[in-house]
């Protein structure tokens, strides 16, 4: 401040202003540095960031990692706040982490009884050693665990699953409460601890104001649960219960529990394999499944239970949705195949596209990545359209490197060809759009699908146990869906209930197969498809294969529904099992023609304007 006064005193007003700003910035910097010494303040900042990211991006790996970091920070913040018996705080936190991650948050009563006894035993021993002083710290250690559970959605789970009425108060908590930041605010150091840091005090005030806003604001119109002044009559209560059940039966509400389930799967995936997992995709798929399930149950007038979901009427309904657009059959990427098939044109940026003569060659690169060494042909074609008069069209002739005429054979893993287009008539001066087409003739893909066939069990309970064991062993996550390699298109198919890959003898099973266009081009024609399921009987008989499938124009760019039918009988080895169950994998393959297009602009100039000369070798390589 002395410097500032000195500068002002000297009459150097401008310099003094700059100095004041610098000093102001220094003051802010000093405050931030001072506040950052408090882990609680850092927690508030990181907690707010986590809350914003969660709302913008949704749950994902980043949020998971941030939650874990905040969980650890919460332990230290609590320890700093309590100031004594710091170690005791971490005992319940460690116990929680072991239970949550090592034991997959099991609620097995026998396990919990032993685990909690051991846990409380350790805390009690700690309490005895510290002469009771660590008891408060130990109990406080449960708070970060509670916040972690609430932050990842357990409150939503309680609301969705247990049937707690959703009050405005809860909506406020669910939507707007940044739990970790709240924890940070609650553990911010006091005046003495914070050494009078203004930023900490400001954060505390802002935090409390926000929390009060979240807690109080939503309840003004109808404070908490409505109309608790008088007890409702029996009929009214029953109706209310029914309404509530209907409310929670909708799939939108179920999303909260799906979120928890998907986050659980994401945790498992990250910790087990380190692989990525899209929580949002997972929620979307579960919601779609729920909607179909709800519609089919409603249509058939069925109660929601597992027995009704095995009725032919329900399965038929679900299969029709699956095959005919209510929801398409879905599949996932085959994680055992890393390389994708790609094919694309790539224009040459260095070319100006300006030519002196109307008789020229304009090149473009065509590249194919063919990781499975499939053998297929690419038929090139091209043409010019005047940009001034779109009716003026001139066909082009293709000269492509490595090709015979306009036909390129692809066998190798990676193929590149320079494709030049020459107008068949001399173009007059003007601007033209040039369109290249590459028809990939006979490209193939496939999708694997696994199913488990179970033998009749002695009791329903044994059946359920067997199914549970099979699901855990063979169908974790979304492994019950067909798995296809990434490429220009994907085969997606299913048989039986899509989400219940267990097949029991005697059931009629719906089967559906679609092709999904995942590239930038169009599916031109489907030459053939086949599903390798020898020994199965189907209705109609010719369901497992087809040739030359007619396509509708609007299906070419998105999805082609190939077939839908029923499996009516199993092969003998699967209908009479010698073991508890049999695990099998089947493959569906498809072969089709795929059209890729690219456009570029060229201009034919006057002879005296100058243009880019093009030389082309005998093999078609353009220099």
């Amino acid at each position, binding site marked *: 401040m002395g410097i500032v006064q000195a500068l002002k005193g000297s009459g150097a007003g401008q310099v003094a202003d700059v100095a004041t700003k610098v000093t102001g910035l220094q003051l802010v910097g000093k405050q931030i540095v001072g506040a950052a010494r408090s882990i609680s303040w850092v927690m508030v900042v990181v907690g707010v960031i986590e809350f914003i990211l969660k709302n913008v991006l949704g749950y994902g790996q980043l949020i998971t990692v941030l939650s874990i970091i905040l969980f650890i920070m919460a332990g230290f913040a609590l320890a700093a706040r309590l100031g004594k018996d710091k170690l005791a705080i971490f005992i319940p936190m460690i116990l929680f982490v072991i239970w949550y991650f090592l034991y997959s948050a099991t609620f097995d009563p026998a396990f919990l009884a032993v685990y909690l006894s051991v846990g409380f035993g350790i805390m009690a021993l700690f309490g005895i050693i*510290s002469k009771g002083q660590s008891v408060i710290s130990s109990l406080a250690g449960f708070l970060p665990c509670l916040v972690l559970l609430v932050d990842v959605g357990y409150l939503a789970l309680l609301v969705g699953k247990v049937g707690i009425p959703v009050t405005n108060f809860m909506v406020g908590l669910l939507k707007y409460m940044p739990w970790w930041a709240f924890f940070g605010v609650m553990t911010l150091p006091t005046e003495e601890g914070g050494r009078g840091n203004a930023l900490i005090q400001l954060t505390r005030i802002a935090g409390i104001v926000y929390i009060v806003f979240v807690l109080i604001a939503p309840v003004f119109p109808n404070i908490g649960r409505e109309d608790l002044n008088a007890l409702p009559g029996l009929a009214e209560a029953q109706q209310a219960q029914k309404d509530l059940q209907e409310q929670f039966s909708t799939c939108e509400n179920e999303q909260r529990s799906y979120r928890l389930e998907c986050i659980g799967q994401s945790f498992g995936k990250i910790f087990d394999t380190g692989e990525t997992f899209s929580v949002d995709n997972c929620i979307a798929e579960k919601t779609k499944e729920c909607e179909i399930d709800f519609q089919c149950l409603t249509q058939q007038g069925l109660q929601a239970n597992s027995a009704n979901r095995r009725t032919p009427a329900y399965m038929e309904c679900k299969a029709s949705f699956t095959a005919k657009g209510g929801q398409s059959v879905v599949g996932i990427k085959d994680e055992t195949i890393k390389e994708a098939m790609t094919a694309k044109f790539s224009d040459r940026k260095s070319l100006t596209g300006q030519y002196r003569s109307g008789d020229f060659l304009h090149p473009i690169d065509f590249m194919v990545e063919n990781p499975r060494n499939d053998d297929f042909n690419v038929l090139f074609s091209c043409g010019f359209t005047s940009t001034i008069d779109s009716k003026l069209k001139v066909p082009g002739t293709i000269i492509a490197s490595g090709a015979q005429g306009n036909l390129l054979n692809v066998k190798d893993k990676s193929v590149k060809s320079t494709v030049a287009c020459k107008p068949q008539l001399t173009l007059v001066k003007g601007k033209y759009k040039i369109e290249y087409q590459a028809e990939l003739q006979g490209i193939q893909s496939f999708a694997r699908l696994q199913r488990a066939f179970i033998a009749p069990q002695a009791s329903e309970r044994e059946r359920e146990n067997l199914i549970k064991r099979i699901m855990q062993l063979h169908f974790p996550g979304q492994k019950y869906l067909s798995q296809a390699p990434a490429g220009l298109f994907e085969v997606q198919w299913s048989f039986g209930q899509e989400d219940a890959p267990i097949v029991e003898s005697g059931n009629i099973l719906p089967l559906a197969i679609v092709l999904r266009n995942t590239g930038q081009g169009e599916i031109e024609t489907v030459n053939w498809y086949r599903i390798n399921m020898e020994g199965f009987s189907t209705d109609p008989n010719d369901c497992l294969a087809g040739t030359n499938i007619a396509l509708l124009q609007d299906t070419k760019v998105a999805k082609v529904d190939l077939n839908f039918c029923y499996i009516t009988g199993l092969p003998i080895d699967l209908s009479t099992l010698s073991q508890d169950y049999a695990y099998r*994998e089947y493959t569906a393959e498809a072969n089709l023609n795929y059209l890729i297009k690219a456009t570029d602009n060229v201009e034919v100039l006057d002879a005296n304007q100058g243009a880019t000369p093009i030389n082309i070798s005998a093999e078609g390589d353009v220099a």
Partner: protein
Amino acid sequence: MKKVISLFSLLLIAALITSCSGTQQISGVTTNYKIGSGDLNVKLLNEAILQKIIPGLEFKIIAELDNQLAYDAKNLDIVITGLEPSYFQVYPLEQKITLLQGKSITNPAGDKEIIEFSGNAGSLVKSAQYYANKYLLQINYDSAMEFQDTVCINTDLYGVNDAGCKVQDKLSYPGQGAVLAVSKMEQVVIPGSSAGMQFRIFLTNRGQGELKKVTLDKSELGGEALDCKFQGEIDKPLEYDFKDKQTVLLLCDAAVSEQISYQTILALDFSYHYKLNKKYQLKIVNPNAALVS
């Protein structure tokens, strides 16, 4: 520092407690194997190799069965379930072992047996880097469990006539060296003219598998047969299928004619069928992909 020392002391105590809860109890020079919990241990000896199987080549699944029960395991049936045959042709899928002796004074380590399943790996789909197949190694076997304890018989509920032994209401047991264990017993005195005692015996599955059928082969109190039945079983009161239950209750009634209290031996012999499911994985890897990576 004090807190750190306290924490380490705590861990040390926990370690000591853990080490004391083993399955052997030394009494003089003899070891009582029929105490604590035992199990039939199964492990694959070449598990690491089975994660790197080359397509088209042969492989072997080598499993070691180690009977750490205090009783013989009989009629062992070892089955591999859940393999996809187009990737893994394993033969035979089922093997049998007649007997694996349990731990005893003459065989303190218990029997071990190594079994082999031969297999051929199939091909990977084009450009796949690997194929992983989880499967179950199911081991079914029959075994037994014996329970003995000295109990006090005293129908004088209020101790008016007799100041002898006292009936213990609740007793806990660490196990009898088997997966099936008598974990707890309650004794209920029925006073009056038709005096008697009821023993409520809690049987627990201490193993990792499923108890399929438990049969009470013998139940005696001081050499006299007891009237026993599993709770809820009517047709076959001496048989019980645990299914997925962890604990079941056996009720045994004894008529008592003696007026004075005395101590005597309660002996129960059980046989049971057990099913153990061990999860493993076979993995075919693309050797070219491995070289590239």
